[in-house]
């Protein structure tokens, strides 16, 4: 597949007679990153799949008004983060559960999920990540798994680089402590 830059894709979307084709290219370019980001937050494949599709449907609807100030990649990650966190919030509200119980459910689903095949250490890391507060979890995942620069994270989460660095270090230390205990 030909790899287009974000600017080229946006130009194709807004100027071509077939915006659907340009959008399809955008989906193909970002589908995996968006999916994995969501998956690490909601854990279950089916939930992640639904949310990831919803992210692109929202993007399709909003793309004609997208001005490109924040960059396509940042924008999609922002929608994905919001959708995933909003899913967890709804889950908590629907069952009147405290946050810890939702995290416990997610942690339990690692044991039963047919699409989780991690080693013991990988499972331990995932469970440790689930003990973190939601936003710290987002920060940790973006840095550790998505290998994202603080600069990019800052644009997605609208938080200063210093605060993100502190949050990531704090989260990493907590996880290391759980791993070595």
């Amino acid at each position: 597949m030909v790899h287009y830059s974000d600017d080229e894709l946006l130009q194709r979307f807004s100027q071509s007679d077939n915006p659907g084709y340009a959008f399809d290219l955008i989906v193909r370019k970002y589908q995996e990153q968006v999916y994995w980001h969501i998956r690490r937050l909601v854990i279950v494949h089916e939930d992640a799949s639904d949310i990831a599709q919803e992210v692109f449907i929202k993007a399709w609807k909003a793309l004609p008004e997208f001005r490109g100030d924040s960059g396509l990649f940042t924008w999609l990650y922002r929608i994905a983060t919001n959708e995933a966190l909003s899913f967890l919030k709804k889950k908590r509200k629907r069952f009147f559960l405290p946050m810890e119980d939702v995290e416990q459910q997610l942690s339990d689903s690692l044991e039963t999920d047919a699409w989780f095949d991690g080693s013991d250490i990988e499972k331990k890391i995932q469970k440790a990540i689930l003990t973190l507060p939601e936003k710290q979890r987002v920060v940790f995942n973006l840095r550790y798994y998505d290998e994202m620069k603080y600069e990019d994270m800052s644009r997605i989460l609208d938080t200063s680089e210093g605060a993100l660095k502190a949050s990531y270090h704090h989260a990493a230390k907590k996880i290391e402590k759980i791993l070595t205990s």
Partner: protein
Amino acid sequence: MTKNKDEITRELQELGLSRLASQMKEESGFGVPQGYFDGFSTSVRQKIDASRQKEPATKARFFSLRAAVSMAATFLVLIGMGISFLLLREGKEEGLFSDFDDQIFEEYFARATEYDRALLYDLIIDTEVDEPQQIQSTTSTDYDLYLDYLLEAAQYYGLEPTELIIQNGNDKRH
């Protein structure tokens, strides 16, 4: 996305977090069904197409729900006003509302009507739920009888519920 694996590993090592640093090379353990990403963009496209086709139908259902809600609310208002009217009249005869003179009575009625109409508009605007099954299953005969009753009742009390119906869609009577 920029790959910063070395930088991130170094950062963890500097923090003395060797377990996490060594694990950086590994995957997270999550998997997806085979070929999942091959069909992903098609699934998204199908959902977008489906939501596009669904839009007019949703509007049609929404209209009928709006009409039904407005009629139901009008009906309740009319019943309520009828009961109030009867109670006030009885009360007057029995001395229950002896301090009510005609002017106060008229004012009360005028205000109540205005308020109820505002309430109805709010109800209609705020309604964003799917049409309940029982409304969908209402037959056109039931609908006509119901509408006739409403129009008669409205005429009797000098109200115009038809205004509401006109504003919420093109009812067949208009």
